[in-house]
């Protein structure tokens, strides 16, 4: 069960309409290293986690990622909601307009739709937690590149917050991986 709280985890203000920036930021909504992939990956992997600690961590980080998905969606919506068709066309979003108008959609920065092929669940906690750590680093790198591309300081501020969260999640997944490895090392199989 989830309870919706009617607020963002971190406030989102934008300087103004910026279609080009939105076209890049959307990748953290529906791209390979985006927040949708992160949330669905963790919430799905939690069923086969072996310890109290790992089940709690995947549940809770998967939940926080949903809040990040909402933040990224809010950024894209605010940057594009007042765009004219001409402006969308000029920014290379003519194709997006043809398929979705100004609605959000789960795509990467070049328009490829989200796919479950972005994520995996191996059922092996070492393999899954290692994938999760890699996912956090890929998301952090993506936020880095987006910060380099951003020409709106208000959006950059939000991107910095989200980048920082990836670093914290990586740290927590690393601790969980260490504990699972210690647990496996003390178990004797004959």
């Amino acid at each position, binding site marked *: 069960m989830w*309870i*919706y*709280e*009617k*607020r*963002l*985890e*971190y*406030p*989102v203000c934008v300087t103004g309409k910026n279609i080009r920036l939105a076209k890049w930021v959307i990748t953290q909504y529906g791209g390979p290293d985006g927040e949708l992939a992160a949330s669905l990956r963790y919430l799905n992997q939690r069923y086969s986690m072996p310890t*109290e*600690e790992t089940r*709690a*961590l995947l549940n*809770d*980080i998967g939940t*926080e990622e949903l809040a990040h998905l*909402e933040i990224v*969606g*809010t950024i894209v*919506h*605010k940057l594009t909601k007042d765009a004219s068709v001409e402006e969308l066309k000029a920014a290379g979003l003519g194709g997006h307009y043809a398929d979705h108008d100004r609605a959000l959609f789960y795509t990467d920065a070049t328009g490829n739709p989200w796919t479950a092929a972005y994520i995996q669940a191996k059922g092996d906690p070492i393999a899954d937690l290692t994938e999760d750590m890699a996912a956090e680093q890929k998301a952090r790198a993506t936020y880095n590149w987006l910060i380099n591309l951003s020409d709106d300081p208000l959006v950059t501020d939000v991107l910095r917050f989200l980048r920082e969260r990836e670093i*914290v*999640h990586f740290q*927590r997944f690393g*601790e*969980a991986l260490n*504990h699972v490895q210690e647990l496996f090392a003390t178990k004797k199989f004959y």
Partner: protein
Amino acid sequence: MLKRMQELGFVAVELNLYLDTHPNDAKALEQYNLIHHEIRQLQMKMDEQCGPSKGFGHSMNVGNTWQWAEQPWPWEM
């Protein structure tokens, strides 16, 4: 008030994830409960003054109309 709730909520998220991998840290457990009380009090105040902050029965509706749908959504603010 919303900003304060975002600050408190952030501390709670951080403590929650930290406690997931440090479940016996007495200081963090104590801080978590302190934040819980602050969040509860602020939420009651916010719900009274600004309308329901949570759905599915976790906030009260005041008045004769459905405030949950009338109040703006986070992406509209």
